[in-house]
């Protein structure tokens, strides 16, 4: 019993461990072969799997849209062009719905965010053991295929959005206007410290909520996939209980995967919409 619990814990840990590249305890640089090694690398380490997958998916998105953009026709669109036009119309209309200022960068930004996050989330639908097994056959100790279950990826994107929000806040309102917005409301100039505290929390909450929402949803989804997969691992001989567990693993993971089609799209859409809303707030002169 205890050995099984141990392997279950190992299984979960293994699936939640990123492939980390950094300085090993012996001073050389390389890939960590255990969670402890990865932890010991500190801040200056790279999650190679997150890095590679997000880069690949981003490149796939760009290549797809680029190939369509190059061969675009004004006539009846066929196949991929039709799909891309459809997607762009969808993004454009939702940006128009929530962004009222004028900025030519926001709609492309929203498109990129939506498809990037969507494709990263989509990796969640692949059976969770496929890629790690393939990678371990190739001698790679860990491989987490869903970049959006890595807080590094989601925070990276959220900080990118946050920098844009800060940039456009200053550009649209001027440095004085932006600082004034942070310090002079809601209580007027005599309540400056309280204002700064409230508005500061408000400001910082934007990237944190953006990153944590995506990360939390995808991480929890991944976790449930792992737990469902563990049910089949509890196979202990040809008993009725084992067979039931085995069958329910298939059904549950199927159900969860189908439900995840919604989650994957929804989380990408929420990340995009919130980005657009934050950008809109950066452009608005409120109060």
């Amino acid at each position, binding site marked *: 019993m205890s050995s099984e619990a141990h392997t279950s814990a190992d299984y979960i840990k*293994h699936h939640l461990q990123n492939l980390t590249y950094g300085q090993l305890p012996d001073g050389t640089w390389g890939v960590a072969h255990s969670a402890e090694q990865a932890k010991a690398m500190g801040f200056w380490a790279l999650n190679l799997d997150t890095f590679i997958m997000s880069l690949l998916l981003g490149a796939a998105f760009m290549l797809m849209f680029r190939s369509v953009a190059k061969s675009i026709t004004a*006539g*009846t*669109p*066929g196949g991929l062009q*039709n*799909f891309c*036009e*459809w997607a762009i119309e969808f993004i454009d209309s939702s940006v128009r719905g929530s962004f009222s200022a004028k900025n030519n960068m926001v709609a492309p930004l929203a498109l990129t965010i939506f498809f990037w996050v969507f494709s990263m989330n989509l990796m969640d*639908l*692949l*059976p*969770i*053991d*496929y890629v*790690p*097994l393939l990678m*371990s056959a190739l001698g790679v100790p860990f491989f987490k295929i869903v970049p959006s279950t890595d807080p590094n990826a989601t925070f990276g994107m959220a900080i990118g959005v946050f920098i844009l929000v800060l940039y456009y806040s200053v550009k649209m309102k001027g440095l004085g206007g932006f600082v004034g917005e942070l310090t002079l409301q809601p209580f007027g100039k005599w309540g400056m410290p309280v204002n700064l505290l409230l508005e500061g929390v408000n400001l910082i909450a934007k990237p944190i909520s953006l990153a944590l929402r995506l990360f939390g949803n995808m991480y929890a989804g991944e976790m449930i996939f792992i737990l469902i*997969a563990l049910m*089949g*691992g509890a*196979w202990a001989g040809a008993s009725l209980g084992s067979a039931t567990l*085995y069958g329910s*693993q*298939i059904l549950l*993971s*199927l159900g969860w*995967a*189908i439900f995840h*089609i919604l989650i994957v799209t929804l989380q990408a859409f929420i990340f995009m919409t919130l980005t657009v809303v934050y950008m809109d707030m950066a452009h608005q002169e409120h109060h």
Partner: protein
Amino acid sequence: MNINATLLAQTIMFALFVWFCMKFVWPPIVAALEQRKKQIADGLADAERAKHDLELAAKRSAEILREAKEKAGEIVIHGEKRASEIIEEAKVQAKLEGDRLITGAKAEIEQEVFRAREQLRTQVSAIALAGAGKILGREIDAKAHNDLLDKLVAEI
């Protein structure tokens, strides 16, 4: 990392999942895209047809305009001809009428002249008679023909 039946379960699940997507997720998306494509194609075809129709209409309107101009020209020429005809007719009519009037007037004048001459003749004969009477009266008896003379004076 050990390979066990979990992998098999995941493979079955993945096959089912792909089947599910093919059956229930993919078709609506493809249908939506297909409909969009059809809409665009229809729109373009309609635009093309409308353009063609417009061209035809323009050609037709030019034709009608040209025909109308021709017809108008014809009508003007016809009208002018008719007008000159009417004028000619009127001239002839007027000349005829004038001639008729002149003839009538001449006849009247002649008649008048004739009547005047007739009258003059009667008067001349009366004067001659009176003169003769006077002459005769004085020769015979002035006093006796006094009343005759008076009558003559009064007559004159």
